[in-house]
């Protein structure tokens, strides 16, 4: 399994854009939003936590269809499914690799990029905490969506339609935590709830993901 993780990371780096793509998208968003709503610092500060969360979500979505699609097309997925690795494990590792290449860079990049949006200093801590706790759920849920659509020619758009509603609770709690942080309120409750969602997703969704993969490989 560690070999699989290492292989996925190596491929992400060598194929180019593995680490950078999501982050670049995030950066573009942080530049475009002020262009769209105007440079008023108060307004930007107020919407920054929400925009950054939505941005993280979309950046995550961007790379989802690559999780299984390439392996499916070149036949690797068949070989992995017949290998001694449990498919649940493969699903978990794929999510982990996706998180390391998108969720983690986004979490680390959110603080500096937030400055572009005039994010209140109090909110930065909660935003980063929220992203650290919430992006694992985004990756795991996204892997599930990718498994559902792996056999489809044009799965890209469908993935968004399937995955976005599933992202809703994470987004609500995450953005709420950051907003409360910005207003100087206590943000632990939404953070804990979100951590609970992440933990539940990480524990249970790989089973659904591997079931979907098996169905698609049949």
């Amino acid at each position: 399994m560690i070999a699989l993780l290492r292989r996925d990371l190596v491929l992400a780096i060598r194929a180019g854009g593995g680490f950078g793509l999501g982050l670049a998208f995030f950066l573009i968003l942080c530049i475009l939003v002020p262009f769209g709503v105007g440079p008023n610092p108060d307004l930007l500060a107020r919407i920054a936590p929400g925009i950054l969360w939505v941005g993280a979500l979309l950046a995550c979505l961007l790379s989802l269809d690559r999780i299984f699609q390439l392996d499916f097309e070149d036949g690797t997925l068949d070989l992995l499914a017949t290998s001694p690795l449990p498919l649940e494990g493969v699903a978990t590792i794929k999510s982990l690799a996706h998180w390391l290449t998108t969720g983690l860079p986004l979490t680390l990049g959110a603080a500096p990029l937030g400055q572009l949006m005039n994010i209140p200093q109090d909110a930065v801590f909660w935003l980063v905490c929220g992203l650290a706790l919430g992006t694992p759920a985004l990756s795991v849920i996204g892997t599930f969506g990718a498994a559902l659509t792996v056999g489809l020619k044009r799965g890209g758009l469908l993935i968004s339609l399937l995955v976005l509603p599933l992202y809703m609770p994470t987004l609500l709690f995450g953005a709420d935590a950051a907003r409360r942080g910005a207003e100087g309120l206590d943000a632990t409750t939404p953070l804990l709830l979100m951590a609970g969602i992440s933990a539940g997703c990480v524990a249970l969704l790989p089973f659904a993901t591997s079931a979907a993969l098996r169905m698609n490989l049949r």
Partner: protein
Amino acid sequence: MDVKIENVSCSRGDRTVLSNVSFHVKSGRALILRGANGAGKTTLLRCLAGLTPPITGALSFSPDDVAYSAHADGLKSQMSVAETLEFWGKVYGAADIMPAVGAFDLKSLLDRKTQFLSAGQKRRLSLARMVLTRRAIWVMDEPTVSLDAHAVSQFARAVETHLSAGGTAIIATHIELGLHNAAVLDIGTFQAEETVETDPFLDEAFL
């Protein structure tokens, strides 16, 4: 390991392709599957590999004893030959990749990225993976595609080695491999007629 299947029916998509396939391959022997395009060779092999559960019938072995080689090579163009073999070696718990390298003469290619390999070299790399699996039953789908005569005999030798160690092989191929212990089965004889058992929507008393 003995491979015995009885009255197996398998389907591809919504269609039942084969029905009532039965055969018995003893340990140390190979079975060559033949049949026209679309006869269902791939479907049967995927069923044996455990990817598609059979609709009816029973397999005498667990999918955990099967090493499957698909039509596609399953190689990553950004990884070198050595990395590929090491990866699969780790997955199957084989520490030493040299037997596989030796069997398919890949030594000079070890550091090359797979995107710079020719089709035949890719195929050899893909087949070398089978040696690393150390599993008793080899299930292979058109393994000799784009191999030259020399590589085919190399492959046949690898299969012979596997068989003489007590393994079994089930191979779909159109060319003569020259294996000593091989039987041939034409799966054209198992063509399925859709029936109510395989598709309940064919019930005559339906509408």
